């Protein structure tokens, strides 16, 4: 009965079978949208778009959702998700800005300045940093960075000044941003370095021949040529930064506070929550109907941001293909 399978496949059959397999990924995406949206639906049907706004304490709203009945009334879905959205934007935004600056500088270092052996050693270093599991970064963050910040950078006076609102332990915006930056910099560096490597040598040489120093030539010609790749790298790094759940949950402090810039230095030490870390934090209570719907609504928001960023980075990279600068 398996004889037919053992024979070499005809072209037609191979094409159909492989095509069917290839469609599985597309089907997975559709299923993902359907399932997440379906479970998030009660939240949006009860709360509408004001769900995205701000108002009240998120922590107490979430706590009120625990132990509601099996068929919760519409009022049980009350939640204002802005603190989480703000936390997500804040951490991802800072991390991407710092990460972009560092990875641009590193890429220039590798291409223009590093002596050959150093440049060659950079590749495994970057690969290592990119492949360290996030939970290990989180562990170092919570066991090393958080106590360091809490004991050395925050003064007793600062702790006392806000003691009636929040507790400053060291876990908060600063440590979250530092760890996220370390996590996303290697990816951006690899992408930008690769793109720079695919710029034809002669373009750079031409610029040097016209009297630019090698650095200026890189900035004026090579970096400019791969601008789309830089934007795409930043988009992918942003996707990773907003989706990072475990690390932020470990190092961002105990509650869904919104760090306030007008607080001065304390701003950087204030705790926060992001959409992804709140999902991890509340995963134990996921059987509560109202809370479950809210959690899936957080996931829906994350999912669409992720989709937008990957489609965006695909569109942005398109001009590069014309010059065969992208693979």
């Amino acid at each position, binding site marked *: 009965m398996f004889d037919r399978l053992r024979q070499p496949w005809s072209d037609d059959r191979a*094409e159909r079978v*492989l095509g069917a397999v290839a469609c599985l*990924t597309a089907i997975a995406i559709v299923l993902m949208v359907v399932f997440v949206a379906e479970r998030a639906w009660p939240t949006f049907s009860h709360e509408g778009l004001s769900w995205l706004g701000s108002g009240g304490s998120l922590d107490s709203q979430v706590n009120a959702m625990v132990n509601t009945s099996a068929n919760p009334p519409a009022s049980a879905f009350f939640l204002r998700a802005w603190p989480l959205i703000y936390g997500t934007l804040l951490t991802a935004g800072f991390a991407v800005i710092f990460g972009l600056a560092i990875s641009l500088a590193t890429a220039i270092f590798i291409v223009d300045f590093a002596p050959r052996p150093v440049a060659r050693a950079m590749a495994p270093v970057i690969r290592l940093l990119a*492949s*360290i599991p996030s*939970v290990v970064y989180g*562990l170092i963050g919570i066991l090393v960075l958080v106590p360091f910040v809490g004991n050395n950078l925050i003064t007793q006076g600062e702790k006392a000044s806000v003691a009636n609102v929040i507790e400053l332990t060291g876990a908060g915006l600063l440590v979250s941003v530092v760890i996220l930056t370390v996590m996303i910099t290697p990816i951006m560096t690899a992408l930008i370095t690769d793109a720079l490597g695919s710029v034809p040598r002669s373009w750079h040489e031409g610029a040097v021949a016209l009297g630019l120093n090698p650095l200026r030539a890189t900035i004026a010609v090579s970096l400019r040529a791969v601008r789309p790749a830089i934007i795409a790298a930043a988009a992918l790094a942003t996707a990773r930064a907003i989706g*990072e759940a475990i690390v932020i949950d470990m190092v961002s402090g105990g509650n869904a506070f919104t760090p306030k810039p007008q607080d001065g230095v304390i701003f950087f030490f204030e705790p926060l929550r992001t959409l992804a870390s709140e999902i991890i934090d509340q995963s134990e209570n996921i059987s509560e109907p109202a809370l479950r719907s809210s959690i899936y609504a957080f996931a829906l928001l994350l999912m669409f941001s992720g989709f937008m960023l990957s489609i965006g980075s695909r569109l942005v990279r398109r001009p590069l293909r014309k010059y065969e600068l992208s693979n």
Partner: protein
Amino acid sequence: MSGVEPQALPASVAPPRGRGRRSSVRGWRRGDQLIFVLAWTAGLGLCLVAGAIVIFLGVEGLRYLDPKLLVTSPSAAVDQAHSGGFLDPLIGTLTMAVLGTLIATPLAVLTAVWVVEYGRPHWLAAVVETSIEMVAGTPDIVIAIFGLAFFQLGILAPFSFRASGGGVYGRSFLAAGIMMSLLALPLTYTATRNGLRAIPRQQREASFALGKTRAATIRSVLLPSLRPDIATGATLGLGRIVGSTAIIVLLLGATLQNSPQNSVPLLGFLRGTGSTLTSYIFFNSPAGEGNAPQKAYAAAFVLLLIVLGLNWIVGRVSRIGAGAALNAGRMAR
């Protein structure tokens, strides 16, 4: 993108520059000198961070890593001396790696072959490519929570088990493994696709000229020469699977010990819940309930060794450069 050969190393990594230019930095403008200093700082800073992490984890790990930890099961205890080792998480990590890679690799290779070698209708190929990029851009927490909703469908009860209330629990090695394969898929796909595109057209034409069909060409000409690319992609995917925590916490139950669903040898284990090294580290960090930093350091050290080993394999196996390998995955999380 067509015809760009993957090189042994990206040209950028080994720039054939003259020596004279570097000595002329003194003559540059102030701003350029500043960038020069910043670039060196950033480059060496990254090396320093990587070195510090490895050395720190090495020191802490070796201090707390007792060979006994590797062969004893974890148990609930307040005292770190009595909370056991991480045999179960180690087995869990291994199971996840095998399951995820076994599912993802064939899927990714077949998809890549179809997209490059057939790819008709054109719009469908574009949809497939976009879908894979979307999967790559989806945070693993979203994949995890989607998996939870999916495997709680009544019809999918065989993949996990029914909880006491009658609802499907939706958390098991099988459920987590299938979702893990989504993490590895884009990495393996991109590596395979780039490998296929790098094979010269003439090689296919020669095969056609000898009377082979397209399908036979794929099987006996293209796939054998793709082995290094597939191995690179699969290893990168393996790295992501081993390092993912969110899927384990949400979809594997992250129980302290691996608890088989029933006594059926393999299936009962796969339908049951368990933990991996990542969830074990999370559990034992101050953020988790175990709060046993010594155990967490020891487990993190073991996990780092696994990741270093995988990195070493990627470096050995891959024909493409290190940066390109990362690029192939777009995002080795």
